[in-house]
C-alpha cells in the first residue's frame, strides 16, 4: 500500500473538524484523523486504551485513517464508524472527481482564452509581419517551446520568416517543408522527419510543425522545438493547429484585402480611362447646314472597342463606325489609336477606301500578330449629296432611300489587321439613292433577349422601317432603334459594346 504525503488536496479542515467532534461526542470516545505520515491532523473527545485505526482511502489510496479509542460498545461503534467513514470517502471521491473536472475545465478555459485573445488581436491587423510576430509570441507562450519559427507570405509573393529563441534559424528548412503539409505533426527525431519526407536538419529535440492553412491553401507554417526532451502532447498539437488555422484565415484575409485594394486602384484607373474615352468621342448630336448626325456608343465594360466618327469636311462629311474584335481595355487601347489615325489621315486623304488601305497597314503592323482586327465602315459625303461607302468586314449600313425603302451595303473587304495587302473599294450612292444611313456595330444585331434570341439584322431593319415612311430626323431614328432594342433586351446584361450612328442628309 502506498500513501501520499500531507493532507490530501480535498482536505477541508473545517468540515473534518466538525465531523470528528460530532463523532467524539456521540461515541463519548476520542476520535482522531491521522495523516499519511502518522501525524494527527484533527482530534476530538477523550478516551483510554489502544485505539482502533480505520484506514481512509481515496481512489484506493490511503490518504488518512480514523482512530477511535476502545469502549463498551466498541465493536458496534466500529461498524458505525466504518459506515461513517465510508460516507466520508464517497464525499471525498466526489470532491476529488470535481477537482479533476475543475482542473480540466481550467485548462480548456486557458486554451479558449488564448485563442480568443489571439483572434481578437489579429482581427485588426493588416500587416503580415505583425501577424506572424503575434502568432510566434502566442505559440511560444502556449507551447513552452525552446525556439520557434514561422514562414509566411508577406505579400506580393514574397516569403517572410519570423522566429523566437535560440536555434530557431535551424528550423527554417523544416518550416518551409511544413508549409506544404495538409495537417500538423509532431516529429520526435530526425528519423521521424525523414520518414515524413523532410530532408533537412533541425535541433535534436522533438519538433511540432503545423501549416497555416485556409480553404485548402497554405499560407506558411509554424514550427516549434520542445523546451526539453519530453514529447509534445496531442493537446499541444491540437492547440498549435487551432492557432495556425486562425492565423491561416487571417493571412487569407490579408490577401483578399490586398486584392480588393488592387481592384479598387484598377477600378479608379478604368474610371479615368472611361472618362478619357468618352471625351474623345464625337458629340452625340452634330448638326451642320447639310447634315444631322446622331450617334451613341455604349461600352459593355468601363471602356470598349467601339467608336464612331463625325468629321465635317469643307465639301461634305466623313462619318463612320469602327469595332475592334473583342472588347474591354485591350480593344479600347487599339481603338483610340485607330480613331486618332483616321482623323489625322482625313486631312490628307479624301476617299474612304484609301483611308482604310493606309490604316489597314498600320493595324497589321501593330497588332496583326495578336489576332486583333478592326471592322469599320466609312461614309464620305460629297458636295453634290452623293456618298462613298467603304466597308471593311463591318455589318452592312442600312440606307433609307427617299422613297422609304431600305437597302444594305455589304462589305467587300476583310476587316483591318488581317491581310496587309487587302484591297478596299468605295461604293458610291447618288443623292437620289439615300436620305438616311444607319451604321451600327454587331453589339446591336447580337443583342440578346431573355429567351436567348438575337436582335439580328432583320429586327433592326424592321425597326428602321418603322421610321422610314416619313423619314424622320437622325436623333429620332436613333432613339426609335434604341427604344426597340431596349424593349427587346428587357434588362438583359450586354456582353458586347454597342454603337449606332445615324446620318441624315438635309439637302
Amino acid at each position, binding site marked *: 500500500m502506498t500513501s501520499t504525503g500531507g493532507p490530501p488536496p480535498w482536505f477541508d479542515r473545517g468540515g473534518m473538524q466538525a465531523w470528528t467532534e460530532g463523532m467524539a461526542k456521540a461515541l463519548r470516545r476520542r476520535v482522531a484523523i491521522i495523516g499519511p505520515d502518522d501525524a494527527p491532523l484533527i482530534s476530538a473527545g477523550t478516551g483510554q486504551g489502544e485505539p482502533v485505526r480505520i484506514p481512509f482511502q481515496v481512489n484506493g489510496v490511503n490518504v488518512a485513517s480514523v482512530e477511535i479509542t476502545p469502549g463498551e460498545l466498541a465493536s458496534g461503534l466500529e461498524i458505525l464508524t466504518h459506515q461513517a467513514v465510508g460516507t466520508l470517502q464517497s464525499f471525498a471521491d466526489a470532491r476529488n472527481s470535481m477537482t479533476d473536472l475543475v482542473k480540466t475545465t481550467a485548462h480548456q478555459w486557458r486554451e479558449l482564452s488564448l485563442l480568443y485573445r489571439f483572434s481578437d488581436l489579429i482581427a485588426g491587423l493588416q500587416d503580415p509581419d505583425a501577424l506572424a510576430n503575434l502568432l510566434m509570441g502566442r505559440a511560444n507562450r502556449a507551447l513552452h517551446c525552446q525556439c520557434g519559427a514561422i514562414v509566411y507570405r508577406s505579400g506580393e509573393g514574397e516569403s517572410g520568416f519570423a522566429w523566437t529563441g535560440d536555434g530557431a534559424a535551424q528550423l527554417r528548412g523544416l518550416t518551409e517543408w511544413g508549409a506544404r503539409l495538409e495537417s500538423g505533426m509532431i516529429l520526435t527525431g530526425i528519423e521521424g522527419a525523414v520518414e515524413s519526407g523532410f530532408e533537412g536538419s533541425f535541433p535534436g529535440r522533438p519538433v511540432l510543425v503545423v501549416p497555416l492553412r485556409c480553404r485548402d491553401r497554405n499560407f506558411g507554417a509554424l514550427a516549434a522545438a520542445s523546451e526539453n526532451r519530453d514529447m509534445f502532447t496531442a493537446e499541444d498539437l491540437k492547440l498549435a493547429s487551432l492557432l495556425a488555422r486562425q492565423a491561416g484565415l487571417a493571412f487569407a484575409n490579408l490577401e483578399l484585402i490586398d486584392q480588393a485594394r488592387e481592384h479598387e486602384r484598377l477600378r479608379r484607373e478604368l474610371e479615368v480611362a472611361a472618362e478619357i474615352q468618352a471625351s474623345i468621342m464625337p458629340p452625340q448630336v452634330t448638326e451642320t447646314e447639310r447634315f444631322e448626325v446622331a450617334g451613341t456608343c455604349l461600352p459593355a465594360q468601363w471602356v470598349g472597342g467601339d467608336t464612331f466618327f463625325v468629321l465635317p469636311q469643307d465639301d461634305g462629311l466623313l462619318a463612320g463606325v469602327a469595332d*475592334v474584335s473583342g472588347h474591354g481595355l485591350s480593344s479600347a487601347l487599339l481603338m483610340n489609336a485607330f480613331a486618332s489615325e483616321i482623323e489625322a489621315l482625313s486631312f490628307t486623304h479624301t476617299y474612304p477606301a484609301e483611308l482604310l488601305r493606309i490604316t489597314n497597314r498600320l493595324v497589321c503592323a501593330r497588332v496583326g500578330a*495578336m*489576332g486583333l482586327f478592326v*471592322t469599320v465602315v466609312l461614309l464620305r459625303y460629297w458636295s453634290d449629296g452623293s456618298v462613298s461607302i467603304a466597308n471593311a*468586314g463591318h455589318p452592312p449600313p442600312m440606307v433609307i432611300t427617299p422613297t422609304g425603302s431600305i437597302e444594305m451595303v455589304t462589305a467587300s473587304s476583310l476587316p483591318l489587321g488581317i491581310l496587309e495587302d487587302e484591297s478596299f473599294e468605295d461604293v458610291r450612292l447618288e443623292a437620289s439613292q439615300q436620305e438616311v444611313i444607319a451604321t451600327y456595330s454587331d453589339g446591336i444585331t447580337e443583342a440578346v433577349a431573355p429567351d436567348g434570341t438575337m436582335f439580328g439584322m432583320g429586327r433592326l431593319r424592321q425597326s428602321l422601317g418603322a421610321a422610314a415612311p416619313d423619314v424622320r430626323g437622325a436623333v429620332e431614328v436613333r432613339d426609335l432603334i434604341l427604344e426597340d432594342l431596349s424593349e427587346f433586351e428587357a434588362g438583359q446584361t450586354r456582353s458586347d459594346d454597342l454603337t449606332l450612328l445615324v446620318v441624315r442628309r438635309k439637302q
Partner: protein
Amino acid sequence: MVDPERGIMDRMSEGKQKESGLITTEKHDEVTVVAVGADLDAHRSQKAKDLLGEIIKGGTVRLVVDLSSVAFVDSAGLGALVSALKSVRPSGGDVRICGARPEVTTVFELTRMTKIFRIFPDRESALASFRTDR
C-alpha cells in the same frame, strides 16, 4: 485523367482526347480536327484562342475547326480563328472550317472572312481538301 505534365502531342497521339469542355481534338495523319463544343462568345473566345495556340505550339499546322456545335461566333471568336490562321500560315499550314450552321456562315460572309477561311460542309470534305493539297 489528363496528365498536365505530358505534352499535348502525346495526349493527342492517343487518338481522341478531350482537352477541355470547349475543345476536343482528333488527329488524322497530319491534320488535327478541332471540334468546338460551345459558342465562341466574349467569355469563351480567349480560352479557345489559348487552346488553339497550344495545339499549334505542339507542331500542328493543318487544322480543321468543326463548328457544328456552335450556334454563335462573335468578333472575339473570329479573332481566335484569325490568330490561329496567322500562326500556321508562315509554316505552310492552314485553318479550315467545317460544319458551320447557316447563322455562323453568315458571320463569316458579312465580315468577308470567307476570303481567308475555306469553309466545308463537313469534316470529310475538309480533310479531303488537305489530302488534295499534297
